[in-house]
């Protein structure tokens, strides 16, 4: 694969949790505007892989390069780099003591240093984009799961990131709320956002993904276009997994 011009590059990344070898020499490149979908059985290391991209998990070995900056280099200003990498979590992780608006403005004010008015304006605009402008004053506890997740997406997007990471963002949602979140993500992909998506939503992977990676036992087992991977999986393990989830 040609890595020139990649937005993210992982080079031979290894991750150990104590005696557990979670990532085994993973290399990967994500290009600007690309939607990369990561699938695989639970415990295969897909979430850990995603979390090494913004160094929420520090690789035991290997390099992570984002936008030409080596994040694994101790001299790198990680906090500044992270403002360009949005992340959305399975359990939303909204700040419960802040309103929807307050969740978004918190980092705008305290990390990006926007004025109160600027932050508010940008937050409202972002809430409008996910269809929740009317719930700006609501606390997370007053919102449905789908609404909370959309606020979480708006919170990440408000930083104007170059890359968005989605970690099984619909797994904690009631079935009828999944679509509203996937719709927001689909719109985002259509707008040209670079995304890495760990998901169990195979329909979404096929429809929105530009490229799909199948992981198992801490390794990338297969990597192909959605069509190819879902219609003609080459690896036995991948075939087996797909036959169980499709």
């Amino acid at each position, binding site marked *: 694969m040609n890595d020139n011009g990649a937005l993210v590059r992982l080079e031979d990344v290894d991750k150990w949790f104590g005696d557990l070898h979670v990532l085994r020499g993973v290399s990967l490149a994500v290009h600007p505007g690309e939607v990369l979908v990561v699938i695989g059985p639970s415990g295969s290391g897909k979430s850990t892989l995603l979390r090494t991209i913004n160094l929420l998990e520090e690789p035991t070995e290997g390099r992570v390069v984002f936008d030409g900056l080596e994040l694994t280099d101790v001299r790198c200003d990680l906090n500044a780099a992270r403002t360009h*990498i949005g992340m959305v979590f399975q359990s939303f992780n909204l700040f419960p003591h802040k309103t929807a608006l307050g969740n978004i403005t918190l980092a705008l004010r305290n990390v990006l240093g926007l004025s109160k008015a600027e932050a508010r304006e940008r937050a409202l605009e972002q809430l409008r984009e996910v269809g929740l402008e009317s719930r700006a004053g609501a606390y997370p506890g007053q919102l449905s799961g789908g609404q909370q997740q959309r606020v979480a997406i708006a919170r990440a997007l408000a930083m104007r990131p170059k890359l968005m990471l989605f970690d099984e963002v619909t797994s904690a949602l009631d079935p009828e709320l999944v679509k509203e979140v996937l719709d927001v993500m689909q719109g985002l992909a259509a707008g040209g956002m670079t995304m890495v998506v760990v998901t169990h939503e195979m329909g979404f992977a096929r429809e929105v993904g530009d490229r799909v990676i199948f992981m198992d036992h801490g390794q990338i087992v297969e990597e192909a276009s959605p069509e190819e991977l879902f219609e003609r999986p080459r690896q036995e393990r991948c075939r087996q997994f797909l036959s169980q989830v499709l």
Partner: protein
Amino acid sequence: MSIVADTGGARGAPDRGFRYVMREQTPLSGASALLGAGSVGVLLAGTLAVLTTIGWTPSQQLAEGITSGAQGAVLVTAAALGVAALALGAAIYRRLPTKASREGAIAGAVLGAQAIALAAFYWWFRSGDVEVFARNFFEFALLEEFWTRFIRAAWNTLVLALSGEAIGIGIGLVLSVFAISSHRVVRAPARLYINFFRGTPLLWQLSFFFFGIALGLRLNLGAYQVAILVLGLNAGAYSAEIFRAGIQAVDRGQFEAARSLGMSYFKALRLVILPQAVRKVIPPLTNEFVILIKDTSLVAFLGLTLEQQELMAVGRDIFSQTFNATPFLATAAGYLAVTLPMIRVVTWLERRMRSGLTGIGA
């Protein structure tokens, strides 16, 4: 009339002796509750009436009231009503059709039992030497000339406790952040401080800092200032543990979300973790504060000037002047006057914050 029904056997299933007794329903639930409330009411109101009629002061008069025949009659009446309420409640419980009406029977029976217990205890108390007891503990006339000192003492207690708590919360917050550090060299001094102040008695700490350090080093500090400082240092150790538990109770995902937005470790702590931790620790922190209010009583041992005396010191002082223990009752009343409103305020605050509709701090 009772109907005894025998189930099981009738349906051909093996009879394991399961029977139930259907009794006629009764409308007496309200009467039972009323009877119970009456027994307690007669006891309290009757006693109040008798003692007020005969007189609360001087103590001989009070002792006379307590041992009077009228008081005895009140006790016997209340106990009899109590027995009746208990019996009625027990008798009708299984004849009441709804849960709400059964509550009435339960209330009646329990109130009746309480009236019986109280009356019995009072009766036992009356059989002792009430006159000597009343002279020592119930000489209320004695308090008249001292009551302004108790007001000032309550104020001093409050100042000591509030200043101590303010210092304690400041120290506790900083220490708790040290205590959760992943670096052992940062954690170790915090642990040392916390364990020292939790592991030695407050009375020792007060003595050491006052007689040892303040007087020994000839620092220009009075007992009152040293007391505030030591109460703060001590409360700091306890609050640190409370805050540490609160911080660790905040979901890890909150920290990750904050870091993923580009916040530094300390920004995430200050803006995201601590505001949530503070909310979680309000109940244990209140508990700690109420304990601190009571701990201010130990300051009395340092020797305070008349203006600085808190509740315990005033109680002891007047006791040694008059050789009468009644001031200690006033001291207890003073502590309750300070602690009860505090508990109420914090309960209210806690409910408000728990509702999740409001943010605090940050």
